[in-house]
C-alpha cells in the first residue's frame, strides 16, 4: 500500500486549521483576542512541566486510542474501553497492593493483571457479539455504566478501599511496585511506562501490516462475508479483536498510576475512553496518525490551563477538540473527492476522452486503499 502524502497528511492539517479558525471566531465573539490566546497556548509548551505533561498525557491517550483502533479495523466499535481501563486499573492496583514481590517483577505482575482484567471485561461484549449477535455498541455502553458501579463498590472502605481524607483509594502501593520515570529536573518526569505506548505502537503496526492475523482482521472489517468465504473464522476474529482491545485498554492508566499516583483514587480522571475514540478517528487507525492525535489532544488539554491563566474561557479547548474531530471527517471526504476528480482527469487524459464509466471504477479502488491504511 503506497502512502499517499496528500491524502494522509492534508486532511488533519486542514481540520486543525479549520478548527482553529472556528475557535478564533468563538474567541472573538466572547470578547477575547484570538491571537493572544493562541500565542499563550503555544508559548506555554516551553514553560514549566508543560512539555513533559503533554508527552505523559499523549502516552496515555495513545494506548487507549490504539485499543479503540484495533476494534475499528474490523468495524467493531468498542465504546467500552472506558469501562475496561477503569476496571483494569482498580483491579491491578488492588492486587498490586496485596502482594509482595521484588522490584521490577512486582510492576510486571501488576501490568499482567491489568491486561488480563481489561481483556476479561472486554470478553463479555465479545462473547455476546460472537455467539448471540448482540451489538457491541449497546453492550459496551452498558458495561461502562456497570464498570462505574463495580469500581465504586471495590473502593468501598469495607471492601478493598481505604478512606484517605475525604477521598477513597485502593491504598498505597509498596515501593517495589513503583516504576521510576525519566527525571528532567524542573521540567518534570516522563513516566517510565510511557515507553509502553511506543512498544504497543510498534506491535500494533507489525500486527496490522505484517501478520496474517492483521490481514484477516482488516479483511473482516472490509467485508465480513467475503472474509468468511475466504476461510476467516468471523467469531474467532471478533473475540480476538475485542480481547486485544480490552488488554491494551487495561494498560492505559498504568503509566500514571505506577509512575506518580501509586494509588487509584475516586478522583482518577474519567473519560479517557471517549477521548480515545476521538483520537482513533483523528488518526485514522494508523499507528503514526494516532500518535499525532494523542499528542495534539494532550497539548489541547494542557493549553486549557494556559488559557485559564490569562483569563480566556478554557472551554474553548473543548470546542476545539470537538471541531477537530468533526472537521477531520469532513476534510478526509473533501480530499477524497479532490483525488477522485484528479483521478478522473488523469484517466480521461490517458484514454484521450473523458469516459465517465472508467473514471468511476478507478476511484472506488483508491478510496478502499485509503480507508484501509
Amino acid at each position: 500500500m503506497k502512502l499517499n502524502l496528500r491524502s494522509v497528511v492534508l486532511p488533519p492539517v486542514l481540520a486543525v486549521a479549520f478548527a482553529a479558525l472556528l475557535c478564533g471566531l468563538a474567541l472573538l465573539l466572547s470578547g477575547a483576542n484570538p491571537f493572544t490566546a493562541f500565542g499563550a497556548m503555544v508559548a506555554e509548551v516551553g514553560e514549566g512541566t508543560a512539555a513533559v505533561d503533554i508527552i505523559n498525557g499523549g502516552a496515555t491517550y495513545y494506548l487507549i486510542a490504539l485499543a479503540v483502533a484495533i476494534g475499528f479495523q474490523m468495524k467493531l466499535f468498542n465504546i467500552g474501553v472506558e469501562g475496561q481501563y477503569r476496571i483494569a486499573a482498580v483491579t491491578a492496583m488492588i492486587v498490586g497492593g496485596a502482594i509482595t514481590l521484588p522490584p521490577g517483577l512486582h510492576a510486571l505482575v501488576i501490568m499482567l493483571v491489568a491486561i488480563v482484567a481489561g481483556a476479561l471485561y472486554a470478553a463479555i461484549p465479545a462473547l455476546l457479539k460472537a455467539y448471540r449477535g448482540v451489538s457491541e455498541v449497546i453492550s459496551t455502553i452498558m458495561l461502562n455504566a456497570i464498570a462505574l458501579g463495580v469500581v465504586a463498590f471495590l473502593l468501598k472502605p469495607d471492601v478493598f478501599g481505604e478512606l484517605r481524607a475525604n477521598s477513597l483509594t485502593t491504598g498505597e502501593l509498596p515501593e517495589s511496585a513503583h516504576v521510576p520515570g525519566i527525571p528532567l529536573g524542573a521540567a518534570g518526569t516522563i513516566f517510565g511506562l510511557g515507553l509502553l505506548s511506543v512498544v504497543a505502537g510498534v506491535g500494533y503496526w507489525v500486527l496490522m501490516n505484517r501478520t496474517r492475523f492483521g490481514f484477516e482482521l482488516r479483511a473482516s472489517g472490509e467485508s465480513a462475508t467475503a472474509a468468511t468465504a475466504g476461510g476467516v473464522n468471523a467469531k474467532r476474529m471478533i473475540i480476538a479483536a475485542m480481547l486485544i482491545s480490552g488488554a491494551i485498554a487495561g494498560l492505559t492508566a498504568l503509566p500514571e498510576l505506577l509512575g506518580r499516583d501509586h494509588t487509584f483514587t475516586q478522583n482518577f480522571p474519567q473519560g479517557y475512553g471517549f477521548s480515545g475514540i476521538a483520537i482513533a478517528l483523528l488518526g485514522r487507525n494508523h499507528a503514526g496518525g494516532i500518535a499525532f492525535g494523542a499528542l495534539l489532544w494532550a497539548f489541547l488539554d494542557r493549553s486549557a490551563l494556559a488559557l485559564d491563566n490569562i483569563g480566556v474561557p478554557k472551554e474553548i479547548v473543548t470546542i476545539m477538540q470537538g471541531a477537530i474531530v468533526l472537521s477531520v471527517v469532513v476534510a478526509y471526504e473533501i480530499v477524497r473527492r479532490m483525488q477522485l476528480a484528479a483521478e478522473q482527469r488523469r484517466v480521461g487524459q490517458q484514454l484521450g476522452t473523458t469516459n465517465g464509466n472508467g473514471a468511476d471504477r478507478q476511484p472506488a479502488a483508491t478510496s478502499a486503499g485509503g480507508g484501509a491504511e
Partner: protein
Amino acid sequence: MRGTVLAAVAVTTALTLAGCAKDSGAPSGGGNASGSECKLAPKPPAAVASTTAAKTPEKADGSALKVGLAFDIGGRGDASFNDSAAAGVDKAVAELGVKKENVKELSAGPNEAESAKQTRIRQLASDGVNPIIAVGFAYADALKAVAPSFPNTKFAIVDATVEGATNVTPLVFAEEQGSFLTGVIAAYKSKKCNVGFVGGVETPLIQKFEAGYYQGAKAAAPDIKIAKKYLTPAGDFTGFQDPAKGNAAAQGLVSGGSDVLYHAAGASGKGVFTAAKTAGVSAIGVDSDQYNQKTVEQERDVIISSMLKRVDVAVFDYLLAVAKNDLTKLPKVFDFSVGGVGYSTSGGKIDADLQAVLEGYKAQIVSGQIKVSDKPTS
C-alpha cells in the same frame, strides 16, 4: 436557724418552679395532635446564651497579600461551593484591604488529569501568589505533590487534610453537625413522619451529611422513617451536576412517603426542588442559603431551610490569619462553635418555637452533650 429555714424554703420554691417550668415545656414538645405526625422527643433545654456571639471584627492589613484561588469544577458562579469560597475572598477584599487585582482565580475542568491540578497550583505558586486556596478535596494529592517545592508559600485546602505538608492548612467542616439540625427541622416539619435524603455522589464527604441528618431526625423523633437515595456511586461525579437524576430520585422518595427532602447534591439539587414543588412537599437546601439563590428562584417556596456550610467564613478566617501571620488560632474543624456550619431561616418557614428547639440542640452539640457521628449507621 430562722435564716436556714428561709433559705431552705427559698431553695425548694426555686426548685419547684424550675420543675414546673420544665414540666410545662414537655407536653407541647411531645404534642402529637395529628395521628400521622411524628411523636416528637422532648425538646432540648433552651440554649442559655447565644453560643456564637458575634465576634468583634478583627482588623488586619492584607494589602500585601496576593491571593490565589484554585476552584473545583464549576468555578465562580456555580451558586454553591465555589461561590461560597469566592465570597470569602470578596469579603477579604472589602475588609482586609486585599487588592482586587492581586486575586488570581483559576478553575478546574471536568474529568481533568491529576497533572492539570498540579500544574494549576504550581502555576500560581511560581507566579509568586501567596497564599493559595484550593477549593475541594480533589486537590489533596496535587497539594501533597506541589506544596513541598514551595516551602515559603502558604496553602489551604477546603474539605481535606494533607498529611506531611506543613505549609498546607486544612479548612474542614463539621457537615454532620449542620445536617443534624436539618434532620431536626425535617422531623418537626414532616406530616407523615417520613423524610428523605438525596446525596449527589456516594462519597465519604456526602455521607457525613447523611449521617448527621439521620441522627438529627432520630433525635427529634425516634420513630421517624428516613429514606435515602444517592444519584451516582463514588468515582462518577456527574451526580453533582444532574438535575434530571435529582428529580427522579426525589420523586422516588416522595412516592415512598417522604414529605421533607434534604439534598446534598450540588447542582442536581435543583431537580430535587422541582420534584418537591410538583409533589407539594418541602425541601431543604445545602451549602448556601438556597432560598435566596437565583438558579432555584422558581422553586424557592418549597425550600424551608438550608444547611449552611460556611466556606466563606473559613476562607475569610484563613486570610485574616495569614494577614496577621498567625495560623495557630485557626479552628481545626469549622463547626457550630465557630460558626462554620449553620442553618438558614429565609422564607419564614422556621418559626420562633422551632428556632428555639434548634438553638437548644445546637447548644448541646457545642457543649458536647450530643456527639454527632460523621459515619452513616445504616
